């Protein structure tokens, strides 16, 4: 029994994780990272939509939660060192 910690997530939790990831992704001040985070989140959740096996579900959910922590830290870090001028794609 793998000690992933999360257990099998409920639908509500998965949706909460999805929304949190997208919210943090939107906050990145770097254009490329922002777009990548949004896109990757949507594609990853879409690809895992049909998972039914409990161990796969809990592994994917823990992976998602870990990525959320990474994204939160990095979003803060990128904003601390943001260049004065934005990317040309942001205009």
């Amino acid at each position, binding site marked *: 029994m793998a000690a992933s910690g999360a257990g099998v997530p409920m639908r509500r939790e998965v949706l909460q994780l999805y929304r949190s990831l997208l919210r943090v992704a939107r906050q990145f001040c770097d254009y490329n990272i922002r777009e990548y985070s949004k896109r990757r989140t949507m594609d990853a959740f879409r690809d895992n939509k049909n998972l039914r096996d409990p161990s796969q579900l809990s592994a994917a959910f823990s992976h998602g939660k870990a990525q959320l922590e990474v994204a939160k830290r990095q979003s803060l870090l990128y904003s601390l060192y943001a260049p004065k*001028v934005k990317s040309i794609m*942001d205009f």
Partner: protein
Amino acid sequence: MASKLLRQTLTKTYTTAVIRRFSTVAAVASPSEYEDPTGITMKGVKISGRPLYLDMQATTPVDPRVLDSMLPFYLSRYGNPHSRTHLYGWESETAVETARAQVAALIGASPKEIVFTSGATESNNISIKGVMHFYKDKKRHVITTQTEHKCVLDSCRHLQQEGFEVTYLPVGSDGLIDLDRLRKEIRPDTGLISVMAVNNEIGVVQPVEEIGKICKEFNVPFHTDAAQALGKIKVDVEKWNVSLMSLSGHKIYGPKGVGALYMRRRPRIRVEPQMNGGGQERGIRSGTVPTPLVVGMGAACELAMKEMEYDEKRIKGLQERLLNGIREKIDGVVVNGSMDRRYVGNLNLSFAYVEGESLLMGLKEVAVSSGSACTSASLEPSYVLRALGVDEDMAHTSIRFGIGRFTTEEEIDRAVELTVKQVEKLREMSPLYEMVKEGIDIKQIQWAQH
């Protein structure tokens, strides 16, 4: 009066002693001299924002997930991995060994076969000069190609000055080497064959599996520079039968300043070390292993393994979008290098009847590289394009678009729009283009001397 003076002095000291929340020590080096809220002015050019980045072959941005894995080793876990006596050293060493395993997993090797270096250039130097110096009594000949990276060509030139013989194999107009020609050039005293897997300028993928088979047949060590190939195409040291492989960290969304060298153990290949010292990295490369950089490279490799399929599918779509977008609007666009055997993220285009330097000057809002600039400071056209047999005028107008994990569709569309606009503007002004449109063949013109 005295109290007024006292109040003035107190308020003066208060305003000048504003405490900044974050230290501005690093800000002294920050580029505030050329950045202001209205835009960036540098080298006489003013643009309204940071350019969109399409130069992934030069370097790639560090993936935030990679940066996240590196930071603890700059903050609290700063030990030297070779310190054997305390926790700092032990945790650093564990991290280095984990990273080694991650790099090995991506190329299908064993962790014992990976040596960390300062980059692919150093790995290439160790491979070429190290192998030939080790076997210098029996083996005096090296085979390489004309389109290799500068560090490989320069190492070979250094060997030539020492008295070794080097054969530079020519390439066809599609950038691929001729396998029969390679077979013919192998001699009994050939000590090394070095062919890069993916070319950094034109993106062509050499037939490494077939070359590996030939090397096995003749029992010659095979070195490949896989800096551009790692994490982008499937790399397998067993299938390719390589003895030595150079890897680079900053081409796979990892940090700059780190690379690796794969050295086969069965059959064992020996090299003479280029860096002497305390015997780190099995004596091949002495010097403290930079834990944060190595951890970053390991994380980047692990990420590349997971994301390779997703990235490749996406980048292929973007490449088609770029090429079709440009070809729809303008003609006279030539792709340099084979279209079939190509890494999808590299597109090297030449625009006919357009002058190269002026094209680049007009494309300041897109960060791209030209075929000539990255090889030399002079205006000499790139040796890679010359080896392909591209005409001088076409070689000058070549542009290399590098697409990567973080490139978006909007960036591609903007790049297409800007390129097409600039090319059309230049062609409008070009008298040569007018003559071509009238049907005159430029090559037949007899230019009169005045």
